[in-house]
């Protein structure tokens, strides 16, 4: 009996000990996460420390989040229409999406890049590329609005873009897909005959003042028909150079997966743009006929202008010796990243287990000593050994992109092995690794591709989400992971979902962007030709008919439109609602939507004028209303339009309350 009791007591004790162990373990786990939670929690009403700008990939937009909280702040429409605010639907914004192929409602945005001064992100602008129909856009960060888009002619698959030089002198673009230059009908199998690549340098006007026509194509370098994949420009000692990875030096045109993976080494193309400037000034470029669009928002009117351009300057490497060199680089390199001091040029050998690091100093030496292994179309190929600083052996599987911190460390994303590896490019040594979930593409550190990284956080942008969040059917968000990089070991802090497919991103201390935020547009400065700045003016102008074209001048202020009753519209008319938001208070937008319009709504900011086009099809009385919950009486912010038959004889009148006017 007694023995039994002892046994039972011992068992109970053991069970307790076991339970204790389990608890202490869970507690240990949660303690770690508790700490992480403290690091990322931003209390109510407080701001995040950094902005991160994610490219939207196949949504064509830019996603803005706060860091460390991961809170999604905004989606900036860039290359895709956005019915949410009428971008690409309003008459004012349609022009931004004009190309030599007509109005394009969609594109694929990949690599955002912040403007820089002396190699440091300055928070003025964000550039981003369109991959599908080559373009570069500029977003003004005082408004978080796309204000300029330039089309890149003689190009396809504008992937190695929109990387910039250290003083935003240039934005670069390039051809991931080689094409005939100029376009012409060829049999595809004659690839080697027709395939050409172009590297485009877009000059940026950095002058102060309110202007949006800042980008202009300076020149295009005609290069061999490989696939130019990614880019980064030099800084510090390598300022004056830009680097572009290339794959498919095999020049395959079908089943590239196999046929472009054959060669042991492809190239990084090094372009000396200062040398190019020299050659151009000596008249070595050729003006070539082409067609592309340059679109920009006129800051005075807020209306996007589309200008056609018909020629571009093309430079051939053979006409300008010293303008370009090829650096052999293993295994179809993907990313190319330059260390903050400008010394290391790192290729991501995506099919390799090693990370090749080139040295800018060695490259200069090799050029001086003519250590060439050959030449292609006037571009000398430098000897691998002559330019290579080292290969970081067995760094991971499938290294793609490297970013840098402010302590001389580098961080590479590894797609196949799903991890971030911290290493020293100088010592060619792996320092730490952390798994990410799953299949990381790019990674980003604030200023991590500039001369001045703020080495506090790293965000891994993972391509595959699977079971990381509550499931949402077959289509899932992408997964960002925030990692603390202040210590010796990297620490996982937070997961948060992102929209579209973030490829690259840019992070910047929030203060650099916050300081020049616009809150409203000055109504007094609104030069929109169809703006009405008061209700009296709206009643005065009211409805103007030019044949079948009808212009309606309207104001919006809490909580009514003026006019809100309109008669005299007929089936067959094309109606333009020019709505001016005459509020002058922060965060009081008004929306406008028209029943049955084959169009979106427009979201009008205070002081702004936007125009919605509508073609009434059936007689009747149709409502319009404000789509943004603007005030306590938002639901009352509505109006009616009477649509009469084509041949009706209804007098054109408009009014709000007692303020009424009729045509004629």
């Amino acid at each position: 009996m007694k023995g039994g009791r002892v046994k039972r007591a011992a068992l109970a004790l053991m069970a307790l000990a076991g339970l204790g162990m389990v608890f202490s373990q869970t507690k240990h786990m949660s303690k770690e996460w508790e700490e992480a939670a403290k690091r990322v929690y931003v209390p109510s009403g407080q701001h995040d420390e950094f902005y991160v700008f994610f490219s939207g990939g196949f949504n064509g937009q830019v996603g803005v989040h706060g860091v460390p909280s991961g809170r999604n702040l905004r989606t900036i429409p860039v290359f895709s229409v956005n019915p949410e605010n009428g971008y690409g639907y309003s008459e004012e914004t349609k022009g931004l999406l004009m190309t030599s192929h007509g109005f394009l409602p969609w594109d694929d945005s990949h690599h955002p890049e912040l403007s820089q001064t002396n190699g440091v992100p300055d928070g003025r602008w964000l550039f981003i590329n369109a991959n599908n129909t080559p373009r570069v856009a500029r977003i003004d960060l005082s408004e978080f609005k796309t204000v300029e888009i330039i089309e890149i002619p003689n190009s396809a698959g504008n992937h190695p873009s929109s990387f910039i030089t250290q003083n935003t002198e240039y934005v670069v673009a390039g051809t991931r897909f080689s094409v005939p230059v100029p376009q012409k009908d060829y049999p595809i199998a004659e690839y080697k005959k027709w395939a050409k690549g172009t590297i485009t340098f877009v000059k940026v006007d950095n002058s102060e003042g309110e202007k949006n026509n800042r980008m202009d194509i300076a020149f295009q370098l005609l290069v061999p028909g490989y696939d130019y994949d990614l880019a980064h420009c030099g800084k510090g000692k390598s300022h004056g150079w830009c680097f572009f990875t290339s794959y498919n030096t095999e020049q395959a045109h079908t089943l590239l997966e196999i046929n472009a993976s054959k060669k042991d080494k492809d190239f990084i193309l090094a372009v000396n743009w200062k040398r190019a400037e020299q050659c151009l000034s000596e008249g070595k470029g050729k003006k070539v006929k082409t067609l592309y669009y340059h679109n920009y928002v006129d800051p005075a009117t807020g209306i996007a202008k589309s200008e056609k351009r018909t020629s571009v300057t093309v430079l051939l490497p053979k006409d300008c010796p010293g303008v370009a060199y090829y650096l052999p680089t293993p295994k179809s390199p993907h990313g190319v990243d330059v260390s903050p001091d400008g010394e290391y040029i790192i290729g991501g050998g995506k099919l390799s287990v090693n990370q090749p690091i080139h040295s800018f100093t060695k490259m200069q030496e090799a050029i001086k000593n003519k250590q060439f292994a050959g030449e292609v179309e006037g571009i000398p190929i430098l000897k691998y050994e002559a330019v290579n600083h080292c290969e970081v052996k067995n760094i991971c599987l499938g290294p793609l992109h490297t970013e840098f911190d402010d302590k001389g460390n580098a961080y590479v994303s590894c797609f196949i092995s799903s991890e971030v590896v911290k290493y020293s490019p100088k010592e060619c040594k792996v320092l730490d690794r952390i798994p990410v979930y799953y299949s990381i593409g790019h990674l980003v550190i604030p200023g991590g591709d500039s001369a001045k990284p703020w080495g506090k956080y790293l965000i891994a942008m993972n391509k595959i989400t699977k079971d990381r969040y509550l499931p949402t059917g077959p289509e899932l968000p992408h997964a960002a992971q925030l990692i603390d990089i202040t210590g010796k070991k990297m620490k996982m802090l937070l997961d948060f979902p992102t929209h579209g497919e973030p490829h690259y991103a840019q992070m910047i201390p929030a203060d650099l962007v916050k300081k020049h935020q616009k809150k409203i547009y000055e109504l007094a400065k609104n030069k929109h030709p169809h703006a009405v700045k008061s209700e009296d003016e709206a009643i005065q102008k009211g409805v103007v008919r030019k044949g079948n074209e009808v212009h309606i001048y309207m104001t919006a202020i809490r909580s009514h439109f003026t006019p809100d009753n309109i008669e005299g519209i007929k089936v067959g008319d094309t109606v333009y609602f020019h709505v001016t938001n005459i509020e002058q208070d922060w965060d009081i937008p008004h929306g406008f939507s028209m029943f049955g319009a084959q169009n979106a709504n427009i979201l009008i900011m205070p002081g702004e004028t936007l125009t919605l086009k509508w073609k009434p099809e059936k007689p009747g009385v149709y409502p319009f209303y404000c789509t943004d919950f603007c005030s306590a009486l938002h639901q009352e912010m509505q109006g009616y339009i009477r649509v009469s038959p084509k041949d009706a004889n209804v007098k054109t009148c408009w009014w709000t309350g007692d303020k009424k006017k009729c045509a004629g």
Partner: protein
Amino acid sequence: MNAISRGLLALAALLLLGVFFKPLWKITLEAPQYPEGLGMLIWVNDITGENPHDLYNINLLNHYIGMKYIEPEKIPELKVMPFVFGFFVLLGLAGAATGSRKLLLLWVGLFVVFGILGLLDFYRWEYDYGHNLDPNAPLKIPGLAYQPPLIGCKTLLNMKACSFPAEGTYIALASLILGLAALMLSSLGGHKTEFTEAKT
């Protein structure tokens, strides 16, 4: 053979029918981006995914490294094995029915030989899949072969590949043990009979 041996042999033969209903071997692949894992089951007459589409997905992965597609219809062993097992069932039943110790010996002997040959053959297939890679594969890591282990786990690139016998093999093993038991018991009884025969 005594009644016990005959019974055991009959049981062994009947038990062997189980291999037609359970997989013989299981190979699993683990990697972070496959949180649910990927598995491949080898049956007497087929190779299937552990979950629907697993085999399809494994083949898709293998194409990066240039491994041949695993196509069950192109593996002749899978056509032969059902007959071999069928033969063992019938032979065992025949041995039990006739009480012939020779048949029992033959059954056990052939079974052991067949088991060893089977494992060797399996190893040969694994070696072939792991080494005989398409030289044009996108992912070529010098000196790295992708042969999964015969039994156990091995890390291949970012994948942890594990290979272990499955229920079918355990059934076959149990059947063999029953056969061996029958043999042991029969030799105890059989010795006596032979002795008597020799005397007369």
